Structure formats: C-alpha cells, structure tokens
C-alpha cells in the first residue's frame, strides 16, 4: 500500500494519539500496545485529521519549520504508518 495523494489522511479508529507528560513525548496507543513517537512523527500524525492530504501536510510542516525539503521524509513515514495500520485514507 502507498499513500494516495488526492485523499485526506486520518488516524485509524483503533489508534489514539496522546501527549505523555511523564515521558515528555507523544505516544500512539492501541489495544495492548504503545508506540513512542519522535518529534517529527508526532508532528505529522497530529495533522492526520481527515481533512489534510499529503500535500497539505507537507506544506503545513514546511511552513512551520521554515524549510522546503520535507516531502520525501513525510511520504516515507506516512507509507510506513499506512502499512502499520496507524492511518487510513477514506475513499
């Protein structure tokens, strides 16, 4: 599977993104599991809200971090996230 550019991306219903104060990081929670996210993964997943497409996510984050070369990193991460079932794209 790979990300379809024209479709919005959302977190899967079985996953929950949450800020953990004790660990000072975002985590992804699912049945009996926990994924500790680095900052860039957390930045991406926070805007997988069912409204944004790949292009929207890239432009939001490039603006936020004043850079213009994030597309391939973001796309790679989202493809992994899709394979792992963390995110979905509705048709």
């Amino acid at each position, binding site marked *: 599977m790979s990300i379809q550019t024209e479709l919005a991306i959302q977190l899967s219903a079985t996953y929950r993104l949450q800020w953990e104060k004790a660990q000072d990081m975002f985590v992804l929670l699912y049945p009996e599991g*926990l994924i500790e996210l680095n900052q860039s993964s957390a930045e991406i997943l926070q805007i997988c809200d069912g409204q944004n497409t790949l292009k929207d996510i890239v432009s939001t984050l490039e603006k936020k971090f004043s850079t213009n070369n994030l597309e391939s990193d973001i796309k790679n991460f989202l493809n992994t996230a899709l394979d792992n079932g963390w995110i979905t794209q509705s048709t």
Partner: protein
Amino acid sequence: MAGSLKAPSPPRWLLAELTYSCPLQCPYCSNPLDYANLSTELSTDDWKRVLKQSREMGAVQLGFSGGEPLIRKDLVELVSYSHKLGYYINLITSGYNMDEAKIIELKEAGLDHIQVSIQASSQELNDFIAGTKSFEHKKSVAKLIKKHGYPMVLCVVLHRQNIHQMKDILEMAIELGADFVELANTQYYGWAHHNRDQLMPTQQQLHDAEGIAKEYQTSQQGNMKIYYVVPDYYEGRPKACMNGWGTTFLTIAPDGVALPCHSARQLPNFNCPNVNDSSISDIWNKSEAFNYFRGDDWMKEPCRSCSEKDKDFGGCHCQAFLLTGDATNADPVCDLSPQHQIVTDAIEQAANLTDDKPLVFRNSKNSKKF
C-alpha cells in the same frame, strides 16, 4: 543484589489483576497454583490510589485482568476513574457474564478495548478446555463488542489439544470481525507448567500451524492484524523478559502484591512489596524486587559475556527458576545455556506421553491441593 544506579525508566504498562476468581477453569492459566489461598482483595479505594500513583509515574497502558475482572462489582467505577486519569484501558476477559448492557456501560465509562479469549474453534473443545459451557456466549459477546465500536482482540491460547484448529480459528476470527488476533502459544508457568506434558505441541504441529498463521498474516494484511506468540521451548533463544525487568511493566496482584512480571511471586525469598505498605514510586524505584534484575550486574555466564544480552536480558527469570531452581541462571530455553537439555528433555517427555494423564483444571478445589 544492586541494580544499575541510573534512575529507572518509568513504568508504561500497569496490569491490574483485580481478582483471582474466575468462572473458567483453563488448565494453562498463568495464575499461581495456590491462588485459592490468596483470597484477600484490594478495596476500590486501594485500587484508585494505585491507579493514580501509577499514572503519575508514567503508566499509560492499563489492563484490567484476573481471574475474571468482570466479577469485581466496582469494575465500571474503576474504568471511569482510570479514563479520567488518561489511561488507555484494556479489559482482558473470558466474556463470561458479559451482556450488552455491561458493554454499553463500560463504553460510556471510557473503556477503550476488550480482549475476549476463546479456547477453540469448536464448541466441544472450547467448553472442555474452559471447563465451562461458554462457546456460543463468547461468540455473541465478540459480535456485541464490534457492534458497540470497540476494537476487538480475539485471544486464543494454543496448545497440543487445539493447535490443529489453526485454520478454523482464523476463519472464526474473520467471521467475528476481529481487528487483532493474538495466537498465543502456551507459556509454561503456573497451571500450564503443571500440565506441560499434555499441553506441549509437537514440532510437526507447530510447523503446520505456523505456516497457516503466516498465510493468513499475508492475506489479511490491512484488515485483521495477527500476532503469533512463539513457543519459546522450540525457539533456541529466550524471550526478552518483560521488555527488561522493571523497565516497562508493573503488575499488581489481587492482594496488592506488586510484581515486575505476573509470574514473579513464585520466586523464593523475593520479598515482593505490597501497595498496602509502600507507594508505587517507592516500589518501582527503591524496592529490592524491582531492582533485582535491572541492568546486568546480576548476570552469570554464559549471559554476562554474550553479545545478545542487551536483546533478551538473559531471558525469563521465572522460567530459569522453574526449570533450574535458580532465577539468576540463563533461561534454559536458550540453546547457549548449559542447562538447555532440560528443555529438550521436556519436549521429548511430552512427545512420548503415552498414558492418558488427565489435565488438571484450574479451580479452587484443585488449587487447595497445592
């Protein structure tokens, strides 16, 4: 024995074993053999204190387990309290006594997920292994869980008596709409250790079952996630004990004993702390039991000089104790262990089991004999 001086990482997982009572009698239960003598249970307020202190330490995954957690009358109250604290809450249940009203009530209280165990893909075998008529009810509970929007995890413990049903088990999981399936080869602790000869599958059975599991893992990708818990007696390398002793997991037993792993109360002279006497922070950071196997100061050879010691931490200490009598020995499932023959002998012994040695079912009557 002192562990590393570095401050330990905070607990991430709290397993709250609310009660040892259970209507089922599975002969592979991981509860202690003598559970019937441990009938004291923490009060609702005790549990709330444990939940609050553990959450403050960093625990975020919470499992309500047992025994059968649905037996506790305060389950909904504890779920609601935990939800307000921000836990991701898992209910690990046999489904027995669950009905639609309870499923709705728990959802409204903030329960995130329900894991239902099924013992087999056929009514006859399920009800035999569970020691209780429960198959049809479990299936209807699984459907209700889906209906009310929970992610549904189906857990099937595998052993010699049901592993040939692998294909039917997976087809049943698809039919029930499971999001995740946990195919858990029996781990030999507690009752399972006692019944090991009758539960241990053969190499051929495992080979066939693993092939089917892999096939479904591929064909169900993106639809149903299948976890296959390997049978460590056959693996040649041990499992990484609890992701590292005292690094991630905190188990609280029904009577308030705090354990770095749910089997640890069987370790002799271990002085496991109790939440009635100490705070979670003191238990986690300062108690002898939680520091005992932290770091690698405790290790003997062959683990000490092993290049894989940071990967498996010497394996499972409870298994080392059960099989060799010394928890600081290498887990003998490792083929580098000088005592590995204990494991190969156990496999052979089970394979050569000819008489009809009966399974000993987990119930209070049998428990009182231990």
